[in-house]
C-alpha cells in the first residue's frame, strides 16, 4: 500500500468540484466576517491595555493585578458568582432529581413552567428590589404584619445590607433553569442499571445516589455550572439596577461610560476576559470530556416511582413554589408599573394606569420601544441567515475550514458581553475610520452586529441539532429521485428543521429585546436608546415617578416578550419544548 493520498474524485468531476469550491468560499467569507466582528474588536480592546505612554508595556496589567482595590472587586465578583451558582444548583438539583425519578400528575406542565425564568431577565426583575428592600418597603411591611418587627423602632434598611444578597438571589432565580436542564439531561443519560446494580448488591437508595448516581452526574453539573458562573461573573445589569457597584464588571462599565477609559480600564478588561476564557476552557474540555466518556444509553427500563397524593402535592408545592418565587420580582415590576401610592404596605394602596400612558405618550420612551424592535428584528434576521448557512456548512458539506467556522461561531460563548461591547467602543473610538458608526454617531450597525454575534452560538447550535436529526438518507433519496441538491434542501430538510429554526428565531429576538450590556454601553445618544437603556436611565433619573415609569417600560418589554412566545407556541404547537433545549 503506497503512502501517497488517493486521487481525489473531485478533480475528475466538475459539478462536484464547483459545489465544493462554492461551499469553501462561503465558509471562508463567514470566517472572515466573524474574525472582523469578533476577534478584531477584542484584540483591539485588549491591546489598549498593553500600551503605556505610547509604548507596549505590561505596566497597567501588573498594576491592575496588584492593586488592592481592583483585587477587592475581583474577589467580590468571584464570591458573588460562586454564591449565585451554588444557590442555583441547590434549587435545580432536587427539582431535577424529582422530575427524573418520580411520576406525578401535571409534571409536564410544571416542568415547562420552571423554565420560564430563563426568558425573564433579572435586569427587569431587579427593579423590584428597591420597593422590596427599602425602609418603607414590602419586606418590612410583611415583617411588621407578622409581628417580627417593632412598629415604633426604626425600620432596618435592607437595601444597604442586603444588595449583595439581592443580586445573588436575582441571578440564581434567573439561572437555575440552566442547571435544571443540564442536570436533567445528565440524569437521563445515566443508565438506570448502574443504580439498580448498586441496590441489588446491598446499597440503600441514599447510598446508591451518593456513591453511584451523583459522581456520574458530576460532569453535567460542571458543564452547567460553568455557564452559570461565567454569566453571574460578568453580569452588569442586575448589580446596576440594585445599586451594588463593588464588582469588577460594573467598575469597568462605569469607567468606559465616563470616557475616561484609559489603558488601566482596558487592562481590567483583559483580566476579566482571561478569567472567563480559562473558566470556559475548563468547563468545556476538562469537565465536558468526561461527560462524553461516561454517558451511556439506558440498558434497562427507567423505573420512576409513582407519587402518592401527599407526595404529589408536595412536588406541586416545590415546583410551583420555585416558579412563583422566580417570577415574583417580575410581578413586583408589574405592580410597580401600575401603582399609585405604595409606601409601607405589602401591596400598593392605589392603582393607576398613568405611568403606562405616560410611557406611550413620551416620545423618548416610545422611541426606545421602536428602536428595540428595529434592532431585535434585524439581528434576528442576520442570525438566522448567517447561523443557518454556518450550520449547513458545518453539518452537511465537506467544505475546507468548517472546523474553524464551528469554533469561531461558538467563541462568543466564552466572551462576556461587556468585553465585546468594550471592543466595539475601541473599534469606533474618536479618530478611527469607523467613527461614523460609533455610539455617538449612529450605533445601529454596531448594536445589531453586537446582538447578532452574541446570539450566534445558540442559533448555530440549535439549527445544527435540528440538522443532525434529519438523516442524510432523506436528502439522498430526493436527490436520487431527480431533485437537485438545493431542491432537496428546500423540500425535505428545511421543512423538517422548521421547529429548530423557529425556536432559534424566538430566543434570539427575545434576547435582543432585553439585552443589557451591549445596549447600555453602545447606545449613548437618547434617540438611539433601546428599551433596556431607557429603563436604566429612568431608574436612575431620581425624579418621583421615574422608577414607576421604568417599571412601566419593563412591563411593555415583558409583554412584547410574552407576545413572541405566544407566536412561537402557535407556530410550534407541541414542539414548544424545542425552545428550551440549551
Amino acid at each position, binding site marked *: 500500500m503506497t503512502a501517497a493520498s488517493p486521487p481525489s474524485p473531485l478533480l*475528475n468531476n466538475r459539478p462536484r468540484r464547483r459545489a465544493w469550491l462554492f461551499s469553501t468560499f462561503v465558509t471562508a467569507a463567514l470566517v472572515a466576517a466573524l474574525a472582523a466582528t469578533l476577534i478584531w474588536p477584542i484584540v483591539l480592546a485588549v491591546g489598549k491595555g498593553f500600551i503605556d505612554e505610547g509604548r507596549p508595556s505590561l505596566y497597567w496589567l501588573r498594576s491592575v493585578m496588584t492593586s488592592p482595590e481592583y483585587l477587592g472587586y475581583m474577589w467580590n465578583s468571584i464570591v458573588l458568582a460562586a454564591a449565585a451558582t451554588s444557590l442555583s444548583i441547590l434549587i435545580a438539583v432536587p427539582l431535577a432529581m424529582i422530575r427524573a425519578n418520580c411520576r406525578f400528575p401535571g409534571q409536564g406542565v410544571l416542568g415547562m413552567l420552571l423554565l420560564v425564568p430563563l426568558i425573564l431577565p433579572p435586569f427587569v426583575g431587579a427593579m423590584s428590589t428597591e420597593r422590596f428592600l427599602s425602609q418603607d418597603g414590602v419586606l418590612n411591611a410583611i415583617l411588621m404584619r407578622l409581628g417580627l418587627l417593632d412598629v415604633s423602632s426604626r425600620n432596618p434598611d435592607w437595601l444597604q445590607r442586603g444588595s449583595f444578597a439581592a443580586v445573588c438571589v436575582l441571578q440564581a432565580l434567573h439561572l437555575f433553569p440552566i442547571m435544571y436542564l443540564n442536570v436533567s439531561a445528565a440524569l437521563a443519560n445515566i443508565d438506570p442499571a448502574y443504580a439498580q446494580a448498586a441496590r441489588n448488591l446491598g446499597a440503600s437508595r441514599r447510598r446508591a445516589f451518593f456513591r453511584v448516581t451523583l459522581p456520574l452526574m458530576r460532569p453535567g453539573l460542571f458543564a452547567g455550572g460553568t455557564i452559570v458562573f461565567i454569566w453571574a461573573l460578568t453580569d452588569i445589569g442586575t448589580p446596576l439596577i440594585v445599586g451594588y457597584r463593588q464588582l469588577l464588571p460594573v467598575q469597568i462599565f462605569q469607567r468606559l461610560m465616563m470616557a475616561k477609559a484609559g489603558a488601566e480600564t482596558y487592562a481590567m478588561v483583559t483580566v476579566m476576559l482571561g478569567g472567563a476564557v480559562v473558566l470556559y476552557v475548563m468547563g468545556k474540555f476538562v469537565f465536558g470530556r468526561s461527560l462524553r466518556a461516561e454517558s451511556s444509553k439506558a440498558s434497562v427500563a427507567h423505573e420512576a416511582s409513582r407519587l402518592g397524593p401527599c407526595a404529589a402535592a408536595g412536588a406541586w408545592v416545590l415546583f410551583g413554589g420555585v416558579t412563583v418565587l422566580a417570577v415574583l420580582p417580575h410581578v413586583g415590576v408589574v405592580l410597580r408599573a401600575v401603582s399609585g401610592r405604595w409606601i409601607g404596605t405589602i401591596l400598593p394602596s392605589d392603582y393607576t394606569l398613568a405611568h403606562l400612558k405616560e410611557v406611550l405618550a413620551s416620545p423618548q420612551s416610545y422611541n426606545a420601544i421602536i428602536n428595540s424592535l428595529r434592532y431585535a428584528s434585524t439581528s434576528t434576521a442576520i442570525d438566522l441567515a448567517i447561523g443557518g448557512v454556518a450550520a449547513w456548512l458545518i453539518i452537511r458539506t465537506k467544505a475546507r475550514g468548517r472546523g474553524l467556522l464551528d469554533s469561531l461561531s461558538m467563541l462568543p460563548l466564552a466572551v462576556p458581553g461587556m468585553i465585546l461591547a468594550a471592543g466595539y467602543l475601541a473599534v469606533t473610538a474618536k479618530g478611527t475610520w469607523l467613527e461614523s458608526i460609533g455610539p455617538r454617531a449612529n450605533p445601529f450597525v454596531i448594536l445589531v452586529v453586537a446582538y447578532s454575534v452574541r446570539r450566534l452560538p445558540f442559533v448555530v447550535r440549535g439549527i445544527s441539532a435540528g440538522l443532525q436529526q434529519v438523516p442524510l438518507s432523506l436528502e439522498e433519496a430526493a436527490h436520487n429521485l*431527480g431533485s437537485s441538491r438545493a431542491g432537496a434542501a428546500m423540500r425535505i430538510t428545511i421543512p423538517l428543521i422548521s421547529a429548530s429554526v423557529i425556536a432559534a428565531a424566538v430566543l434570539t429576538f427575545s434576547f435582543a429585546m432585553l439585552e443589557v450590556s451591549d445596549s447600555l454601553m453602545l447606545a449613548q445618544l437618547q434617540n438611539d436608546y433601546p428599551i433596556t437603556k431607557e429603563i436604566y436611565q429612568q431608574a436612575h433619573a431620581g425624579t418621583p415617578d421615574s422608577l414607576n415609569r421604568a417599571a412601566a417600560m419593563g412591563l411593555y418589554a415583558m409583554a412584547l416578550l410574552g407576545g413572541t412566545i405566544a407566536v412561537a407556541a402557535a407556530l410550534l404547537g407541541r414542539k414548544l419544548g424545542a425552545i428550551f433545549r440549551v
Partner: protein
Amino acid sequence: MKDIRIKNVTKIYSGAAGERAVDDVSLDVEAGEFFFLLGSSGCGKTTLLRMIAGLTAPTAGRIVLGGRDVTDLPANKRNTAMVFQNYALWPHMTVMRNVEFGPRMRGVAKGPRRAAATRMLEMVQMAGYAKRKPAQLSGGQQQRVALARALAADPDCLLLDEPLSNLDARLRMQMRSELRHLVKSTGATAIYVTHDQTEAMSMADRIAVMDAGKIHQIGTPQDVYNQPATRFVADFLGEGNFVDGRVAVAGPTLAIDTPVGRLLAKAGAGVSVGDAVTCCVRPERAVIRTDQSQVSSEETAVLPAQVEASLFLGDVAQVCCRMKNADLWKVTILGVSTSAIAAEGRHVSVLVPASDVIII
C-alpha cells in the same frame, strides 16, 4: 430497460489509511436482470451500489448505464431509483406525495403522476394508505411504500440496499417472492445488495459474491453453490467440509490424498498429478453408513469416522463426525431418527461420491 456496465471501479476513503472499500471491480448486468451483490458487512457492496446511484463518487473507474457514461453525472440526472435500507420515507409528506415525488421531479403533470403513483401503490397493495404519513405505517408497510416510490420514478435501473433487513423473519420470507415478482413484472434492471445468502439464492438471476472490496465470483445461484471458485464463496454459500490434499492419480476420475483419507473427484481443467488442491464436500452430499465393511468403489470414497455429536434440527439432523485426522466434519441427514444412525462415539463410514467433491 437498460444494462449496467461497471468498469474497474475503485473507491478509496482518504481517512482510513488508504483502505480500498471497492477494489478494481468490473461487472456487467444485463437489461432486465435481477442481479445480486452478496457479501458480509463491510465488503463494499453498499459502497458500490451508492456509486452506481451517484451518491458516492468513485476514486477510479467508469460506470455506464444503458450505453451512457454516467460517472460524472450528478445523482439526480442518472435516472436510477434506490430503495434505502431504512426506507428514507419523508416524514412530513403523505404516502402519496412520497410516491409521486419522482414523476414530479421529471415534470409530469398532476393528473398523470397521481394516476401513476396510485397504480404503483396498488401494485404493492398500499392503495388505501395514500393519505397516511410514514410514521403511521408499520415496517412492512413502509418498505412497500419505499418500493412503490422507487418504481413510480420509472427508472432505468432499480437499486435496492438490503430492503428486507429491517423486517422480522417471517415477513422477510413473505416479501421475497412478492418482491421478485414485482420487480420482474416491471421489467426493470435491478441490483440488490444483501448479506443474506438465502435471500440471494432464492431471488437472484445472477449473484456476485464480494469480500473486502473484491468480487470473488459471478454466476447463477446454482453455479456459485455447486461450483464455488474460491474457498470464501464455498464457505459463504451454504456449509462445507474443507480439506487440503494432493492429487495422486489423474484421469477421468481424480484420486486425491488427504489427511482424512483418499477422496475421489471428477476431473477438472488443468489439474494434474502432484497438484495441491482444496476439496470441499457439502454436508448434505455426504452419506453416513454404520456398516464398517464399506470399501471405496470407483465412484465413491469411504472415509472412516467416529460420531462426536448429533443435532436434531426438525427437518434435518446434523451429525458431527470426528475424521481420521481429528477434523470435525458435518453431515446432514434428512429427518430420520438420529438414534437409528448415530449414537455418540459410534464408528461410522462417511461416503463421499466423486461427483460431489468440489475442487477449489
